[in-house]
C-alpha cells in the first residue's frame, strides 16, 4: 500500500515537473491570430469593432458572429465558419453590402481644402498631404474602408474601382 502511494506520488511529482518545465515555452498561435489572418484587413469597422484585429478578438471570445465582415464577403465568412466549426452563413445585411469589386478612395483634388480630417480618419495611413495642402490617396495602400468619406467637409472623396493587379 505504501509502495503504491509512494509510486503515485513520485509519478505525480514527475508529471508536475514536466508540466511546469514546459510552461515557459512559447504560447500556441492564438485563436485571435488565426482569425485575424483570415480577415481582409480592410479596417473598415463595418463589423462594429474598431478594426479587423478587435473583431478577431471578439470572435475568439465568442462576443461576435462570423458573418459581420462585408469586405471579406462569402469567402471570409466561409473560412471563418470552417475555422470555428460552425455552419457557414451569409454576411448579415445590417453590416453593409458585400462589394462586387474592390474599390479605393480618390480625392478630387480641385475641391480638396487641405483640412487633414481624412488623414486622421484613415486607419492604414494611405492618405498623404499636409495642412492646407491638397491630399492624395495612395491607391496601392488604400483598403477601400470608406472611413475617410464622412469626415470630409467638402465631400471631395469618391470611391473608384481599384487599379488592376499588375504582375
Amino acid at each position, binding site marked *: 500500500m505504501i509502495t503504491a502511494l509512494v509510486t503515485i506520488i513520485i509519478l505525480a511529482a514527475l508529471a508536475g515537473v514536466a508540466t511546469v518545465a514546459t510552461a515557459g515555452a512559447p504560447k500556441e498561435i492564438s485563436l485571435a491570430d488565426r482569425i*485575424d489572418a483570415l*480577415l*481582409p*484587413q*480592410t*479596417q473598415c469597422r463595418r463589423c462594429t469593432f474598431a*478594426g*479587423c*484585429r478587435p473583431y478577431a478578438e471578439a470572435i475568439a471570445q465568442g462576443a461576435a458572429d462570423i458573418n459581420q465582415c462585408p469586405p471579406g464577403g462569402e469567402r471570409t465568412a466561409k473560412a471563418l465558419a470552417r475555422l470555428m466549426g460552425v455552419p457557414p452563413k451569409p454576411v448579415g445585411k445590417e453590416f453593409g453590402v458585400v462589394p462586387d469589386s474592390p474599390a479605393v478612395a480618390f480625392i478630387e483634388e480641385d475641391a480638396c481644402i487641405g483640412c487633414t480630417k481624412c488623414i486622421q480618419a484613415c*486607419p*492604414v*495611413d*494611405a492618405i498623404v498631404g499636409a495642412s492646407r495642402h491638397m491630399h492624395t490617396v495612395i491607391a*496601392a*495602400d488604400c*483598403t477601400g474602408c470608406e472611413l475617410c468619406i464622412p469626415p470630409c467637409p467638402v465631400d471631395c472623396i469618391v470611391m473608384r474601382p481599384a487599379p488592376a*493587379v499588375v*504582375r
Partner: protein
Amino acid sequence: MTARELLAGGLRIEAHKQRSTKAPIRAASLTERYVIPLDQHSGLPAVPLVKPSDRVRMWQPIAQPAPGISAWLHSPVSGEVIAIEPRPAPHRLGAPTLSIVIANDGRDRRFENAAAIVSFEQISPNEACEHIARGGIVGLGGAAFPTANKLESSLCENGPQLLLNGAECEPYISCDEVLMRERAEDIVFGARALLHALCSPNCTIAIEDDVPEAQAALRQAVDKAADPRIRIKVVPAIYPAGGERQLIATVFDAEVPHDGLPADIGVVCQNVGTAAAIARWIRDGQPLVSRIVTVTGDGVSEAGNWETRIGTPFSSLIADCGGYTERMSRLIMGGSMMGTSLAHDDLPVVKATNCIIAASALDLQPRGLEMPCIRCGNCSQVCPAFLLPQQLHWYLQPFDSDQLARHGLLDCIECGCCDYVCPSQIPLAERFREAKPLLARELDAHLSADAARARFVARNERLARLEAEHRAKLAQKRRPKNEPTS
C-alpha cells in the same frame, strides 16, 4: 532527337497548312479605308501625331509611342485622316478601341524619310535599337510586343544569344513558312541587324522538321550570307514547340525562370517575321505597315498567304480569297488552338494578325458533352509547362487558392493542349484562363492584407505613443503648479 525534346510535352496535331501554302505570297487588294488601332501592340496605346482631315503620305508616322512600352504607327497608304475614333478591333475581341481611320487616295505617295535607310554596321547598337523602334517594329508572332523594348530589356554584358523563331507550330498558320520560303534573305539580313543591335554572339534560327522547302530556302540564304554566327536548328513539329519558353527549352536545353524573362538566361527570342520586317525597314526604309496574313479554312473558296497592309478590313481579304463558301461557320484570328473567335469580319488587320481562319463545321467539329474528369492524365502528358491539369481542374471547384498555387495555375500558358486530348471534353484552357486572374488577385489580396495589417498596427502604436507623450507633457505642465503646495 534528344531525350529532353521527347519529354517536353505537347502534341503532334494535324497542321492543315497544305492548302494555304500552294500558292506564293500575293498582294492583297487595296481598299478605300484603313483603320489603325492605336493599341494594337502590347503595352500602352500610341499617341496620335495627326488629326482628322490631315493629309498623310504612305509610310508617314501617324502615332508615336507613349512613354514606357509602346510603338510607332505609320500610315499604310497615302490619303486623308478622316477620323480618330473608337472602332471595333480584332485583338479586343471586336470591342471598339481608339483608331486612326485613313481614306486611301490610291496614289501611294511616299513619305520621304531621309533617315530611314541606314547601314546598320555604321551605327552603335543603341542607335540601332532606337532606329528599330522608329520603324514601328513589333513582334509578329502574335503578341505584338514592341521589339525595341524587348531588345533594350535584353541587353546584357556579353550580349544575349539570339533565337529566331520560325517554328510555326499552331495549326492553319503558314505565314512564317511562306516567308522563309520566299524571303529567306530578308530574314538573314534582319538576323544580322539584330545581332548587331544586341551585340549578340550568335543567332539560332529554329525551324520545324515538317517544312522541307522553307528549310532549304533558309539554308541557302544562310550559306549565301556566309555569316558564321548564324546557324539553323531543326526542331520537331510539336505543338506548342514554337512557344517562346518551349522553344528555348528545346533549342538551348535551358528553362526560363517562371518569374523571369528569357533575357534572365541570356536569350532573346524574335519571330522570323519580325527579322524580315526589320530588314525591310533598315534596308528599304519601309516601316511595319504590312505583313503576311494567312487566310485559310474550309469557309473560303481559295486559301493563301497575302501581303496585307495593316488596317485592311478582314472582309476585303476574304473577298480576295473568293468570298465565303456556304459551309462557312466561324471566324478565327490566329490558329485553331489559341486564336480568338470573332463575331464579324468588319475588323482591320493589325500587326498581330498572322492568320484568319474561315472555319466550317468540318474544320472545327463541335465539342462533345462535358463529362466529369476521370483523371486519365492525358492532359498532364501533353502539358508543355509540366502541370497537372486534372488536379488544377479538381481544385477549381470550389476554388482552392492554396492548392491551385501549389499546382502552378499561374504557370499555365493556356496553350489548350489539355483541352485537345481530354476525353471528358472539359474546356480546361478556358477555365484556367478565367481562374488565373482570380488566383493572382487573391494572392495579391493576401499580400496587401498583410501590408494593411502592418500599417494598421504601426498607426495604432504611433497613436498610442503620441497619446502617451501628450499625457507626459500635460503632467509636466501641471507639476510646477503642484510643487509649491507640496
